[in-house]
């Protein structure tokens, strides 16, 4: 399946991209996306377990994904 990975703020700077398209095996989870991203160049500046959102909702690493999901890695938020 194909998922869109969104990166923001310091994570986007670290990886030099704000969006990635990633191919994953069936049954992949949100945590698998994190592992995939963490293997990319520049990702050593990401924390080991960043917050993740699937389809605009915070999600645990165990959450199973489906085709075309939008998976976002969420740096520490700083609104207000």
């Amino acid at each position, binding site marked *: 399946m194909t998922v869109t990975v*969104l990166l*923001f*703020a*310091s994570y986007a*700077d*670290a990886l030099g991209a704000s969006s990635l398209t990633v191919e994953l095996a069936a049954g992949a989870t949100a945590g698998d996306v994190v592992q995939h991203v963490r293997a990319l160049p520049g990702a050593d*500046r*990401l*924390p080991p377990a960043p917050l993740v*959102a699937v389809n*605009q*909702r*915070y999600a645990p690493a165990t959450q199973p994904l489906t085709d075309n999901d939008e998976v*976002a890695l*969420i*740096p*520490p*938020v*700083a*609104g*207000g």
Partner: protein
Amino acid sequence: MRSAIVDRALDAASLVNEVARQSNGATVLFVGTVRDVNEGRPVQGMEYKAYRAMAERELADIVREAAIQFGTDDIVVEHRVGTLALGEASVVIAVAHPHRGRAYDASRYVIEQLKQRVPIWKLEHYADGTREWVGAAGQSVSEQPS
């Protein structure tokens, strides 16, 4: 009740008017503004970025939670994104309620939850020309001005 992520200057007075109702005895307005110093470093400006679809959703959830928990539908929140100058408002929260205790508590709930959950980030522009994502301490990516 209403919440929004917006790209324009915020108008606190219009939000106060929006929650006004003759059954309300108390209105509490919170305005967050860009400070000239953060953790001892002089700041010149601020850039707010949001994961917009999710930020709107979280903000709407928070307002709904506050409405249920504190018993008023008269809650309006706007958060601005983009580049802000010192002193400009980044967030405005207006709450009205028949009684003041719950108006304060609902206002406080919204800002505390917003700061914990809503995916918005700010890039501080320091007086020395550097920029940094706030809260990204440790893993922060310092940027030179472009």
